[in-house]
């Protein structure tokens, strides 16, 4: 995974395939991923999805762990406001994960490698779109220096 980082910048830009770790809520985004798949929508294969019961169960250290141990980007996605299966898990996740985002931003640790989205079970198209767009963005950012820490 990290061998790319040792290559020349120009070469890495063309050959670099980022690793994106996704934490997806069981009740919405994980289903949206299935829907995108069964609807044969195309999105980059860089994604490593992890199904969680709720974004509210995603600890700040999950995001950090992924970034520090090899992911070039982390995508967390859950139910739209008001739709949480556990009433307020997504709101709590938003508070908790914005602390991590702000921490990374404050210390110049590439906060753009972290993204939080709302994608409902019916939004297969949005899922494919977000994954495509985020993967492209991380590709442009290049290999993450965070995994060297």
């Amino acid at each position: 995974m990290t061998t790319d980082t040792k290559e020349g910048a120009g070469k890495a830009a063309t050959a670099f395939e980022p690793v994106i770790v996704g934490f997806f809520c069981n009740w919405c985004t994980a289903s949206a991923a299935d829907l995108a798949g069964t609807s044969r929508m195309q999105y980059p294969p860089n994604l490593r999805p992890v199904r969680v019961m709720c974004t509210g169960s995603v600890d700040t250290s999950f995001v950090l762990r992924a970034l520090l141990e090899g992911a070039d980007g982390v995508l967390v996605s859950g139910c739209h406001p008001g739709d949480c299966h556990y009433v307020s898990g997504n709101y709590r996740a938003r508070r908790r994960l914005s602390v991590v985002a702000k921490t990374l931003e404050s210390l110049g640790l590439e906060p753009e490698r972290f993204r939080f989205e709302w994608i409902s079970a019916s939004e297969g198209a949005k899922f494919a779109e977000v994954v495509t767009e985020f993967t492209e963005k991380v590709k442009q950012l290049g290999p993450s220096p965070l995994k060297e820490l």
Partner: protein
Amino acid sequence: MEQHHRTIKVHAGESPSKAAVAHLKGLLKAGTLEAVLLQKATADGRSYAHVLVTKPEELEGADPFAPVMPASCATALSRLTKLEAPKGRVGVVMRPCEIAAAIELTKLLQVRLDNVVVIGTDCHGTMSVQDHIRLVEGGKDPRKALEGDVKLHREACRTCDWPEPQHRDMLLGVFGAAGGHVMVVAEDERLLAGLPEAPREAVAARDAMVKRVAEERAKARAEVFHEVDTKLQGTVAFGAHFGTCIVCHNCMDQCPVCYCNECFFESQTFRYEAEKMLRWARTKGGLDMPTDKAIFHLGRMGHMVATCVACGMCTQACPVDINVGRVFKYVAAQVQPMFDYKAGRSLKDPLPQATYLEDELEPR
């Protein structure tokens, strides 16, 4: 209720500490307080330690204005009150940052303030334990050295957010008094024990000094923040700053608001098979041992920075001299405003991670 301003005169050859202790002795004797929790000089005179005192004579050598802060009194207060509130009234002498931590711990259900009389002190700042020991062993007076040299102050003190103690039941004030008196402010007449009224000029002098101290510290804070903002950015700088970390977790142990009995970072999650570590060693080009330095510090920020009171106990506790507090304080100053929160400001503001608003932050 009205706050009464009184003074204790400091007699020639006496110190404000001694005068304040005499007042506390009186409160113990009169039964106004059942016990006092405060700092007392250690037997060898090299430092200070917190002690819970019930007998007036045991207050000998105690110092509400100790120039050194080896541990936060909020930690001691949590130990004292977590399981049950004391039956009698206990006076707890705390600096402003220690009160701030006690406020956070109260909201985290780690401190009970029932029957606790918070005795807040004006804090000139403290030096590191190491500096204190060095000065004592060199035959110097640490307190005098502290007054004359702002560089001797711990960075957390130089850049302190808390110019005066909030949420106190009683103030022991030394600001603006030039060692001539100790101002005692309280609502409860019993705590004032018939002390004479403070002259209006003394009150004004204290207010002026609080303002001046706040300004000086805000300036120093801005300078330190600028330093982080410009120099401590990116993975290389972060790696260098924490490079000497031995992952001993002392910073977490001594952090007053880091309260979990079983810390996630000390759990089995962070124990791995040799093969796993060898794989990391291969992909990372060498694996720092012990592992998980970066995730410990960044993860701890994720867990507690919203309640960080910037007391700098993390830096004080670090055996390899990493300025942990500088980073935590800076990040806390960015994170807390997101929730319109200031750790230690109020018992009423809910903990950021215990609540939410429907319409806030990103994504909406």
